[in-house]
């Protein structure tokens, strides 16, 4: 009789723990959905800014390349401000690359968030079907373990698969000739 009561309490506690886990996973998933939205919005803004910058850059770059071709044909034809403009464009090249690399970084972060959301969704769906025997704590514990396994697999997956595209500052621009 005592053992039966103890198992019933154990089952209630285990069911409560499983339910808490679902709440935590669902809350985390909602927060990640907001993060995904903000990342997407940031990327749109960055893309628009990059596109405008690239248009401005192209206008000047095309002229410089044309001037270079003219100079190759007639060496004395170089405009006096050619080198100054080229220097400015070279500086722009470095910063425009950063725009592109930040875009890739946002892509990688979006992928991490999406993968984690997918796994959290899977974990939550495990809590959907009713347990066969709600009075047995083992069933609730098994369910919680399966959900945790799913979440841990999500964390592992984002660590293994998501790439970090932007090189560390100390390596950026480095050259190795073999």
């Amino acid at each position, binding site marked *: 009789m005592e053992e039966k009561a103890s198992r019933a309490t154990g089952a209630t506690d285990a069911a409560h723990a499983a339910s808490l886990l679902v709440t935590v996973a669902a809350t985390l998933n909602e927060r990640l959905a907001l993060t995904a939205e903000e990342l997407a919005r940031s990327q749109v803004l960055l893309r628009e800014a*990059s596109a405008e910058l*690239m248009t401005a850059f*192209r206008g000047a*770059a095309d002229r*410089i*390349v044309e001037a*270079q071709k003219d100079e*190759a044909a007639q060496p004395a034809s170089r405009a006096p401000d050619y080198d100054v403009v*080229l220097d400015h*464009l*070279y500086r722009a*090249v*470095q910063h*425009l*690359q*950063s*725009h*592109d*690399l930040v875009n*890739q970084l946002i892509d990688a972060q979006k992928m991490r968030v999406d993968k984690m959301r997918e796994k959290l969704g899977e974990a939550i769906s495990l809590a959907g079907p009713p347990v066969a025997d709600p009075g047995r704590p083992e069933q609730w514990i098994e369910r919680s373990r399966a959900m945790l396994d799913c979440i841990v697999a999500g964390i592992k997956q984002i660590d293994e698969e998501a*790439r970090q*595209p*932007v*090189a*560390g500052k100390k*390596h*950026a*621009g*480095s*050259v*190795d*000739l*073999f």
Partner: protein
Amino acid sequence: MKTILAVDDSATMREMVAFVLESAGYRVIEAEDGAQGLDRATTTSCDLVITDQNMPNMDGLTLVRSLRELRDYKSVPILLLTTESSDAMKAQGRAAGATGWLVKPFDPATLLEVVQKVLR
């Protein structure tokens, strides 16, 4: 005029590389992944190949290995221009037959120096 093949899946990056090289008098042809790069390299004779590493269809290291199998590209310099900066990746690049490894974002003046050096 020397011809350089620039391979990168980022259109912005290809444009940056092409501008810097063209402004220095090189002719540049572009490809958006390793597979297209290999195709371009076999239809056009290139004096230098500059390739990214992480690309769809065929990555940079596979492109280097594939090019080194071609008779015309046994001794053509091939540079990796990538965000990858680990020693392990560089070692793989060297083993694949790459001539050098540059980490993005690149400095235009440095890129031109390296290009002049490997084309000498």
